[in-house]
Structures are given as C-alpha cells and as structure tokens.
C-alpha cells in the first residue's frame, strides 16, 4: 500500500518537473520570438525610433499619421516579419509532423521529395514557360501537392507504412532533382540564375498579399494538427498498439500527412523552398525539452525564430549586400544543430 503511494508520488513529481520544463522552454522561446520581432521592426537602413515604431503600429487606432514612417513600418517591415514568422512555423510543423510520423529524424519535406516536387515544378515554370512572380508560386504549390499525392498513392498497399513512404519519397526526390538538373544543363545561364534565386528562397519581395493564403491555410491546418497529434503519441508505440488503444491509425495518418504537405506547400509557395528550417526545428525543440512533451508547439516557435533571425542576419549582417534568407537558414540552423549535438553529451535521440 505504502509502496503504491510512493510510486504515485514519484510519478507525480516527475510529471510536475516535466510540465515545469515544458512551460519554461515554451515561455523562453516565446519571449525570444517577441524580442526578435520587435528588433526586426526597428532594424533597417531607414532609422525609425522605437517610439515611432509603436506609434505607427497603433496609428490605425489613434489616427496619428506619419506617411514616411508608416510606410516603412506597416508596408515593409511588418509584412516581412509576419511572413517570416508564419513560414518558419509552417516549415517547422511540416518537418516535425513528417519526422514524428515516419519515425526518422531525416524525414523532413526537404529530404523526402515534397520540396523537390515544388522546386522542380517552379523551375519548369521559370525555364520552360518563362513565368515569374505569382505564377511560379502557384506552380510550386501544385508541384508539392502532386508529388505528395504520388508518393502516398505509390506507397499505398493495404495501408501505408512509414518505411515505404520514406523510400518512395527518396525515389521521387531523385526524379525531381534529375528534372531540375536536366533543365539546368539545357537552359541559358540567365534563366538558370533566375531559377537558382527562387530555389534558395527569399523574403526580399515579401508583401501583405503573400500573407493571406498562408494565414488562411494555417487557420485550417493548425486545429487539424492539434486534433490529430494525440493519436500520433499513440502511434509512436507502433500501429498495432495504437489500434488497440483506440486510435484510428490510417485515418489519422492520412490527415497528418495532408496537414504536413499543406504546411510545406503553402510556405514554399510564399517564399520558395527555404532549406533546413523544416529539418532543424523538431530536433532543436526536442533537445531543449529533453523528453518533456512531443515538441510541436515548441518546434513551431523554433522555426519562426530561425526564420526571423536568419532574415535579419541576411538583411543587415553584410552592408550593401542583401543575402537571400535561404543562404542564412542553412548556415545558421546548421551551426545551431551542430552546437546542440556537441553540447548535449547524451545519446543523440531525436525520436
């Protein structure tokens, strides 16, 4: 009897400690993100005092209008920062969903063919049809969805196993990369440069119009993910156990794959296939949590932070050069992950 009490007390204390850690990590990330957001409104070639930034932000309510400052803050910096946060979150959620679902830390959309599908489609639009702007985004979106459908359809045999999805995804990624390489060797140099610029991904042309489709998508996708994440925890124990626990495995898996593809497709259409955010957010969040939760919320925060931070570095680190954000996410995210790997002297457990 006393033993049982002891044990339940131990369980309670461990749960309490985990909850505390989860709250701490979430709060820390949220604070860092808020700081980064504020900083991104303040930094730039056109100096705006912090007080003026605040005045601009509240100008729709107060009616105080200061044309030049309002334009810089409301039409340039706010849309850019908001888009960075939303795309960072989307890439991160796409990545962590795939990684958890397929139980492989390497299975982010930039490895299992979804991003390749979007990119190949976009490069095709640029080089073969000579398109630009919104049409390319549309092409990328269609490419991501079609590739995902093809992977899912090909992997379906009385259900989908994670292993089959991963391997078929790799096959698709190879085909799509080959399409791109072929187009690159057959096109004129100028077109190749254009395509490459799109492929690296950038927020340099961010405007409010890019935000709406993505924001709408997130309004649908985030509740869907929240609803299905509980089954995902059960699925970690294997399909049979999850079914025994009452999870509708196949249904949930399809829903989650759809959500993960949606995140990747909308974000890629908005800013191009910015590399590595999807791959890195989940592992970083889980390493910070150290076992205290599945890390979806924290991964979304990490993704937003990586994207926003990288974009600030890309804009302001080198005077006179505006790097595309994709160049920085690669270096920045990679260094951070490497540092984490070295800093944690535990086994590199991600899943």
């Amino acid at each position, binding site marked *: 009897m006393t033993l049982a009490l002891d044990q339940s007390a131990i369980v309670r204390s461990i749960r309490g400690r985990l909850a505390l850690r989860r709250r701490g990590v979430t709060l820390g990330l949220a604070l860092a993100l808020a700081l980064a957001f504020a900083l991104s409104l303040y930094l730039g070639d056109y100096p705006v005092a912090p007080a003026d930034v605040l005045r601009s932000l509240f100008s729709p309510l107060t009616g105080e209008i200061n044309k030049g400052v309002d334009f810089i803050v409301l039409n340039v910096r706010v849309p850019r920062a908001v888009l960075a946060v939303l795309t960072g979150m989307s890439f991160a959620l796409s990545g962590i969903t795939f990684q958890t679902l397929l139980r492989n830390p390497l299975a982010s959309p930039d490895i299992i063919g979804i991003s390749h599908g979007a990119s190949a489609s976009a490069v095709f639009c640029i080089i073969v049809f000579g398109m630009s702007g919104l049409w390319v985004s549309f092409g990328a979106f269609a490419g991501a969805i079609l590739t995902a459908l093809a992977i899912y359809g*090909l992997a379906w045999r009385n259900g989908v196993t994670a292993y089959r999805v991963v391997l*078929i995804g790799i096959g698709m990624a190879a085909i799509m990369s080959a399409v791109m390489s072929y187009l690159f060797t057959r096109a004129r140099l100028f077109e190749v440069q254009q395509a490459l610029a799109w492929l690296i991904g950038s927020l340099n042309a961010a405007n409010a119009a890019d935000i709406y489709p993505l924001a709408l998508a997130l309004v649908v996708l985030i509740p869907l993910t929240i609803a299905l994440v509980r089954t995902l925890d059960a699925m970690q124990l294997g399909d049979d156990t999850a079914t025994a626990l009452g999870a509708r495995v196949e249904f949930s898996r399809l829903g989650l794959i759809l959500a993960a593809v949606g995140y990747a497709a909308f974000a890629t259409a908005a800013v191009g296939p910015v590399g590595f955010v999807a791959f890195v957010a989940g592992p970083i969040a889980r390493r910070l949590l150290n076992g205290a939760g599945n890390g979806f919320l924290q991964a979304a925060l990490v993704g937003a932070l990586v994207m926003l931070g990288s974009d600030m570095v890309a804009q302001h680190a080198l005077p006179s050069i505006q790097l595309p954000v994709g160049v920085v*996410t*690669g270096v920045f995210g990679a*260094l951070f992950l490497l540092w984490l*790997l070295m800093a944690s002297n535990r*086994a*590199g457990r991600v899943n």
Partner: protein
Amino acid sequence: MTFAEPIAGVRRQVPLLAGLIGLAVIVLAIAFLSITVGARPVTLDTVWAALTAYDPNSTDHRIIWELRLPRTVVGLLVGAALGLAGAVLQGATRNPLADPSILGIHAGAALFVVLGVAVLGISQLSLYVWLAFAGAGAAMLAVYAIASVGREGATPIKLALAGSAMTAALQSIVSAILLTSPRTLDEVRFWQVGSLAGRSMDVVVQVAPFLAIGIVLALASGRMLDGLSMGEDVARALGQNVRRSRAIAGLAAVILAGASTAAAGPIAFVGLTVPHVARAITGPNYRWILPYSMLLAPILLLGADILGRIIAPPGEVQVGIVTAFLGAPFFIALVRRRKLATL
C-alpha cells in the same frame, strides 16, 4: 567470433553465389557494350582489333582507347564504389536514408570545387579531382568529429544529423557563391550533375589506388556490419569492438565516396538505393549485401551512361540524370512489390 548459422542459411548460399556469378557476367557484358556503343558507330570487329592490336593511326581505335575505355573503367570503379559506400553507411548507421550525400561528403566536395573555380579560377577537370577529394575528406572528418563529441561517441543518429546539418551549411555557402558568380555557375552546373564523359586515363590512375583500398576495407567489414545490425549491445556482448568497427566502416565509406565524387562528380541515388535492391535479393546478411551492391551498382551506372549517350542525339544526357530517371521508377516499383527488410 562466429555466428551459429542455421542449416537453411547454408542452403541459401548456393543460389546466392550463383546469382553473384551471374551478376559478374552481366557487368562484363555491359562493360563491353559501353565500349561499343556511342555517337560514332564502330563495328565489333574493330572493337576487338582495337583491344588486341592497337593501331594509333586509326580514328576508331583512338576513340575506343582514349574515350570509351577510360569512361567504362571510371563507370565500373565509381559504380562499385558508390554501391559499396551506400551499403556500408547504411549498415554502420542503421539508417535506410544513409548515403554519401547525407554525410556531407558530396557537399564538401562541391564546396571545394566551387571555391576552386570561383577563387582560384581553376577549370581543368583533372584538378577538380583533387579539390573534390580534399573537400569530401574534410567534410567527413568534420562530421565525424562533431558526432563523436559526447559520452556515446559517434552514434548513427548523431552521424546522420551532423551530416545533414553540415550538408545544409555547406550547400548554403555554395548557393551564395553561385548566386554572386555567374561564371562559376556556368562551369559548375555541368559538374554538379555527375558524368562519366571526358575523363582520361589519368583520372582513373589517380583515383584507382584509393578506390582499391576502399573496396577492400568495405568488403572486409561485412561481418562487423552484421554484428552492428543486431544493435550495439548485442554486438558488444558478442565481443565486438563497436567503436573500431564503426571507424573502419566510416573510413571505407569516406575513401569510396570521396574518390568516386572526385572522379565523376556528385552522383546521387546510386549509393542510396542499390543496397536496398541488394537487400531485397539477399536478405539481411551484409556478407552478401556488400558484394551484391558492388556488382549491381556498376550495372545501373554503366547502363544509365549508355542510355544517356543514345537517348538524345546529337547531345548526351549526363549519367546522374539518367540514373535517377531510370533507377527511381524501378526502385519505387521494388519498394511497392516487396516487403523490404527494415534496418
């Protein structure tokens, strides 16, 4: 250390050995085809004459000796190296997605080549070889060093994560250079695809010793990989030195992947998928998976190269593109049809 093999295992060995001999015959046949097929039609008699009684005044003979033979030898060596490197990496990291490109080897090679072109103005293929080799080695050493930090040493998952992170970081730098230097982009976009064309015998001579060492190391690591595939604890309990096994396997993979990238550019997909095909035939025993991978990969690579020569005349399609177009549908079909062995 010997594993008690079940009786059924012995009975399986005979067909597996026969299959291996069959594959070797196919490799020879496809190598011969690779010498005979090309933009310029050369009769079989001429091929035979060129190989047995070389006449330096005959254009046909010179095409065979100076173009097609080196190309075929590079294809054979690089194919064997890629297949083995993939199989060894997958076995040592127990990750089905492991291949040279995951461990940062391709990205390291690409970075050094791009830097060489952009900064030093190099544009000779024979110099690319050394740049690529140095880059591959440096990247792999860095990845291994990062993954080894900490109590557990270089666990498979840490290796794969460190490799992916390294790849992303290096690729970003490559992208930045290519964006700012159109000349480099123009040079490198053809190398980046991976190709067997235009390699002279010098290239073969330069990389052959490395490939030979790598192949021997890789083939010798079959038993260790079998141990590792049962999990580290079991391997340790069986008296294996896990750290040493992984170091040997890693070294073999670096040498093979580095040398093959140097010789033919970063050819993706072959090293990743061939071991899965081999595993589907042989089952989970690495002492069979390794030689099967070593013979299956050159068949894929040379077959793709031959197809690339005739598919879009008058030009050629680079082998890296064809392997994906040819290999990926086959691979997908295989994944669909069979219950692949999970790692």
